[in-house]
């Protein structure tokens, strides 16, 4: 495993993604919903970075903004230390040469009318592959084999495969583009445990083989524990805690991380999962103060009055909380 001293492949600083509200054909947006509100993130080569949080916390929006599927609203993006020009017209296209994405639902992300060969060749054509047909086929077969399928799959359609195999095709599709960063949005949550375990195993071997960096978006903390090396916990568009997985999972500082860990069912544990009371607040209630304060068991007066700042520990753990757990 490479050391942490490696430069990050991709860095985000104060990244913002806002959705316009009440916008119509002739109507201007009334207001903006900050789904991702000032996020800092570093992705290192050959490592898996997990992004966890409840649904509606903005984790998928962050992922899709990295490939330009959701327009970004502000912030800085650095690729291997160089600032990326976000304002240029073809910025999303340029960004997609570095960052690629795999989605949760493999069924709807593969065109049912294309064969596997066409599905795998299309991204290459889009990204300007110029070569003989033979070379193209060779690349496609190579990609298929690296995900554990063989060339007999080439002329079949997506419906002929099981969920796990379709997810493998999705992975093969991005491999030929040699992305340095791969965004995986809940890719195993629709699969069974044993099929999901196969996919995660594949992902892990590809990461070390291609020195790819993976942003693994999930709501299932159990899969993260053994897969990722870093973790960020998101709540209401902000990262509340981040750091090395072992540190964050064993000694969380933020009460929200602790609550997520408490709610997770664990095999062999005598304690039943403890639910977190209350539901996610609405976006109108969001401000610079701690957004978790209404559900927080440790809430004190300060939380309702003083804006938060980032605290960093020696163990590379960062968190936003006035009263961290020891």
């Amino acid at each position, binding site marked *: 495993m490479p050391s942490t001293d490696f430069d990050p492949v991709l860095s985000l600083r104060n990244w913002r993604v806002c959705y316009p509200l009440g916008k119509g054909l002739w109507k201007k947006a009334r207001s903006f919903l900050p789904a991702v509100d000032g996020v800092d993130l570093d992705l290192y080569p050959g490592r898996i970075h997990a992004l966890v949080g*409840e*649904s*509606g916390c903005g984790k998928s929006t962050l992922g899709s903004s990295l490939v330009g599927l959701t327009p970004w609203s502000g912030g800085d993006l650095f690729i291997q230390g160089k600032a990326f020009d976000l304002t240029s017209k073809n910025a999303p296209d340029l960004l997609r040469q570095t960052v690629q994405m795999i989605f949760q639902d493999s069924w709807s992300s593969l065109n049912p009318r294309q064969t596997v060969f066409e599905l795998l060749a299309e991204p290459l054509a889009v990204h300007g592959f110029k070569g003989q047909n033979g070379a193209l086929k060779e690349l496609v077969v190579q990609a298929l084999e690296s995900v554990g399928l063989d060339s007999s799959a080439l002329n079949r359609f997506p419906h002929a495969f*099981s*969920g*796990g195999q379709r997810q493998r095709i999705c992975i093969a599709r991005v491999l030929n583009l040699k992305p340095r960063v791969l965004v995986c949005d809940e890719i195993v949550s629709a699969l*069974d*445990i*044993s*099929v*999901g*375990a*196969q996919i*995660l*195993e594949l992902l892990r071997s590809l990461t070390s083989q291609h020195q790819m960096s993976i942003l693994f978006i999930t*709501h*299932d*903390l*159990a*899969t993260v*524990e*053994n*897969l990722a090396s870093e973790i960020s916990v998101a709540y209401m568009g902000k990262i509340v805690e981040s750091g090395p997985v072992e540190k964050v999972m064993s000694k969380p500082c933020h009460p929200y991380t602790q*609550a*997520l860990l*408490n*709610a*997770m*069912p*664990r*095999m*062999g*544990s005598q304690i*039943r*999962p*403890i*639910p*977190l*009371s209350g*539901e*996610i607040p609405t976006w109108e209630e969001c401000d610079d103060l701690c957004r978790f304060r209404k559900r927080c068991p440790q809430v004190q007066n300060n939380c309702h009055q003083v804006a938060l700042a980032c605290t960093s520990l020696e163990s590379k753990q960062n968190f936003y909380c006035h009263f961290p757990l020891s």
Partner: protein
Amino acid sequence: MPGPNFPLLEIKDLSLGFALTAQTRPGFFKFTQQKTTPTLSIIEGVSFSIHAGEWYGLVGESGCGKSITALGLMGLMPMPYGRYISGSINYQGQTVWNPELGGLRQHDPWQQLRGQEIAMIFQEPMSALNPLYTLKKQLEECFTYNRLSSGVLSAPEKKDRIEEVLVRVGLGSVLKRVLKSYPHELSGGMQQRVMIALALLLKPKLLIADEPTTALDVTIQAQIMELLKSLQEQEKLSLLFITHNLALMSHYADKVGVMYAGRLVEEFPVAFLAGRARHPYTCGLLKAMPGKGGSQPIPGRVPSPQTYTQGCRFLPRCTQGSETCHVHPSEKQLTPTHRIFCHAIH
């Protein structure tokens, strides 16, 4: 009245399947005879029983027939292709279905049970609730379609019952808003609570929950599970809980049944999950779970019903398989509560 040891629901050697072509109905053209069509079995020889106040968990990968078992128990096999092949279903000692009752077109033995005795909650509340009606209307609908209760309760009584149930599932503080709203206006957790309220409305004794928390976050999942647990403890509700999450199962269920390729392969009390489960498939599932020590996937995948064999169906993926496994293993009783179908385990 059934005694305490009398199972609430008992199924014996139940086999369910699908006809490969639709049955022609004797109708206007009298000469169109009912044809016998080939049937593909999906569930074969499944037996288990659920006692009053018991939480029975059913696990297995997708495609193992867990959901079809649940639908079969509710008399909701997708028609016109669904077929009850053999075996029997008994509820409180009364026969609900056995082969002598035949097809279900003319006679629906579940009419008295569905909703009032056995209720079901589904995986996706968003697709189980009607997007065009307010939740108040959908909750009231329950009384209309169940013949026993519709005549008994007066309108204010119905309203009281709806409010009582919504308070019970933890929607008391937003009761007025929930009744007025449409399904899309609520969050996933709230929708699932409304689904549970719908199921509880007619005071059933058995609740069938088909992956009720798979679509939810861990925090909301824990809330829903605690709610179900309190219902089981306080109102002596029995549950048939279908999931593929073994960790979740280990915290709540009393008894666990493991299904593979349409057959029950092992059944044991939940405490056995840690270390005493013996079937190679159960052990494989446990090892495939994500955890600190990493996970080892089971190689291969679940066979499709077209390729079902007579012998042990786990054989192609099994590490302990031998020649004898080409014959269907018979039931072995390891302890009074531990049943297993495997040649390799003695």
